[in-house]
């Protein structure tokens, strides 16, 4: 990762030079929402590498339905911030071809529940072409997916399908929980030579945090996007979470502290690969593990973590690994979604159960 410096960007052959940017790249620490942090990260990627393209539905003049790409088409043009036809398979399929031609497409899927028309392209093509070609072809494609619930949306707009992609070899699946991480991790995703599913916790789009805009991620430093981070240190129980559930876990930890229980919160940041090392080190310290995510518990990330923690921490465990998450139901209507989502109380209930063994 390098500190950002202004630089001349080479233009692709035969293209007119882009007009100079209206404002120089921002630097310093700013307080931004998570969605603005992603916007800033995308802007930095577009400035840094002329091969970066954004593609998606309504990402141009509108700036995306969540305004994550706000202002980018105005500054980088409609050839680099592309309003695509309304067809998800087409978006990902053409992104694969663009990547084969040397571009670095960043696709926006408008909502989690709309990714399935592209599921075939993502799992049978994007995930496998590097393998099929024995490494000759790399596909640096990023697929941004606003995911998760809690925003009062209608059907198909609140889902958490990350495990379907984590279960597919060849894909990386990452998800930031804070604006600071969002700014850096989106740049790392773009710089990664591998396809990356970048899940954005849409329920946290409006959460604010300090973002160091002096950071520019480069291809030499994409490894750290795979690493979990200890978001809060504790000694009695480890709560592993990612995306929107990290903030929930932190609030639960605060409440537990009032009851004299010390909770360590691990923000996984990456679902594939899974940073088992950081997680196992934490559970060996605390002896207890609770996993929290919005996605259904059945066959989910929590199950994978429970198996790994059991294998690696068997003699350290004071309690079975417990899972808190969505039920084996379709995402319910929004008037009752807060009974479906793993909120602070359900996390605390699991912490209490873990402590009672």
């Amino acid at each position, binding site marked *: 990762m390098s500190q950002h410096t202004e630089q001349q960007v080479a233009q692709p052959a035969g293209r007119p030079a882009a007009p100079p940017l209206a404002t120089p790249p921002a630097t310093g620490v700013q307080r931004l929402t998570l969605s603005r942090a992603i916007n800033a990260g995308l802007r930095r990627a577009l400035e840094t590498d002329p091969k970066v393209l954004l593609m998606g539905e309504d990402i141009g003049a509108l700036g995306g339905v969540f305004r994550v790409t706000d202002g980018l088409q105005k500054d980088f043009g409609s050839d680099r911030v592309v309003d695509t036809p309304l067809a998800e398979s087409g978006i990902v399929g053409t992104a694969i071809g663009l*990547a*084969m031609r040397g571009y670095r497409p960043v696709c926006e899927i408008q909502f989690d529940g709309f990714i399935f028309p592209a599921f075939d392209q993502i799992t049978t093509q994007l995930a496998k072409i590097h393998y099929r070609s024995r490494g000759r072809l790399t596909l640096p494609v990023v697929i941004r997916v606003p995911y998760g619930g809690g925003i009062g949306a209608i059907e198909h707009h609140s889902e958490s399908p990350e495990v379907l992609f984590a279960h597919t070899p060849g894909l990386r699946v990452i998800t930031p929980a804070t604006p600071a991480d969002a700014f850096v991790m989106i740049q790392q995703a773009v710089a990664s030579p591998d396809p990356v599913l970048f899940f954005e916790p849409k329920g946290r789009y409006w959460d604010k945090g300090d973002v160091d805009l002096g950071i520019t991620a480069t291809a030499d430093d994409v490894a750290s996007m795979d690493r979990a981070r200890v978001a809060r240190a504790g000694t009695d129980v480890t709560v592993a979470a990612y995306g929107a559930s990290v903030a929930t876990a932190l609030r639960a930890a605060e409440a537990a502290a009032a009851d004299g229980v010390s909770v360590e919160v691990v923000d996984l940041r990456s679902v594939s690969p899974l940073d088992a090392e950081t997680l196992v080190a934490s559970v060996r310290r605390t002896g207890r593990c609770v996993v929290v995510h919005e996605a259904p518990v059945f066959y989910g990330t929590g199950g994978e973590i429970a198996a790994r923690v059991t294998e690696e921490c068997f003699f350290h465990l004071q309690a079975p690994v417990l899972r808190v998450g969505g039920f084996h139901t379709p995402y319910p209507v929004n008037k009752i979604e807060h009974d479906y989502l793993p909120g602070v109380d359900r996390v605390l209930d699991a912490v209490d159960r873990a402590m009672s063994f």
Partner: protein
Amino acid sequence: MSTPAPDVDLVQLLTPAGELREHPEYSPRIAHLDAGDLRGMYRDMVLVRAFDNEATSLQRQGELGLWAQSLGQEAAQIGSGRALAPQDYVFPSYREHGVAHTRGVDLPDILKLFRGVDHGGWDSDALRFHLYTLVIGSHTLHATGYAMGVQRDGLVGTGDPARDTAVVTYFGDGATSQGDVSEALVFAAVANAPLVLFCQNNQWAISEPTSRQSRVPLARRGDGFGVPGVRVDGNDVLASYAVMSEALERARSGGGPTLVEAFTYRMGAHTTSDDPTRYRTSAEDEYWRQRDPIDRLRAYLTSIGELGDDFVAALDAESAELGRRVRTTVRAMGAPSATTMFDHVYATPHATLDAERAWFAEYEASFEPTEQAQALDRADERPTVGEVAL
């Protein structure tokens, strides 16, 4: 029986009997071809058919797990393939052995996939011929995206024939029902991408005739997308060349995408696992055998006195030699080592995969005999009956 639908023109320059026919628009596109060029096309078709037949035999001998024949489609593939410029890029389906040959793929390399030693088999970027795609229609979008990249690189409409670049995707009649093919038409049309969508309508998608895929001639499928279409006699190598040349020129000059329907016939089975006798008649086979793409070019070249005995004899020998080389090469294709399954899943390290790779290596190593076990084995060796003096 599947025969040409009457409601769309079929571009044909060489009749099934091998007679040259004038076409006001397309004849000029083959005017520069001399007898040597035509013999080259003939040679390509004969060699590809020899290869195809050899591969079918190798499958029957258990050397290949599966084989998808190109039998009968040689003219559509060689004609269109020979119209390509070196800088053009091709996204094939999985039956384009003839096109592969025109792009410089060494034919035995195609069999790595079917023998099960490689998912790909050639350097696609060097040859500008992408790996075969088995999921029907998926690659048409990759071609479209690639063409959008070519546009962004400023390699369309420069007027420089060495730079202007077209992208071609090959697919079949069955693929036209896939959503991805419709999406490719949408994206290519909207972007005005330098793309040729070359559909080989070989009349059958395994057991389903084209009538199960479309109520309109496939050449018209592009109409609603704003993509012009043309139907060419895919068993006529000259017409396939001419129609493809025109479509490529439109793409390279900035005129946008074209849908070509090459009307041809899958003379063989879908694959070696298929049994066409269950769903089509011998009368239909016979109808198309009369329209064999190789026969008609042979008839034409013979009629103009340009297919000498020496050439035919040399080509026979070359075909036989190709068959021998294919057999030898395929039989020598050994299984890769088991640990290669972990290679190239990702371009950068992935902790979960790396842990599995390490576990597997350790597991494999646990079967390697220790020195002590080897010593015991040696001590265990007893003379066999034959070695005992009787």
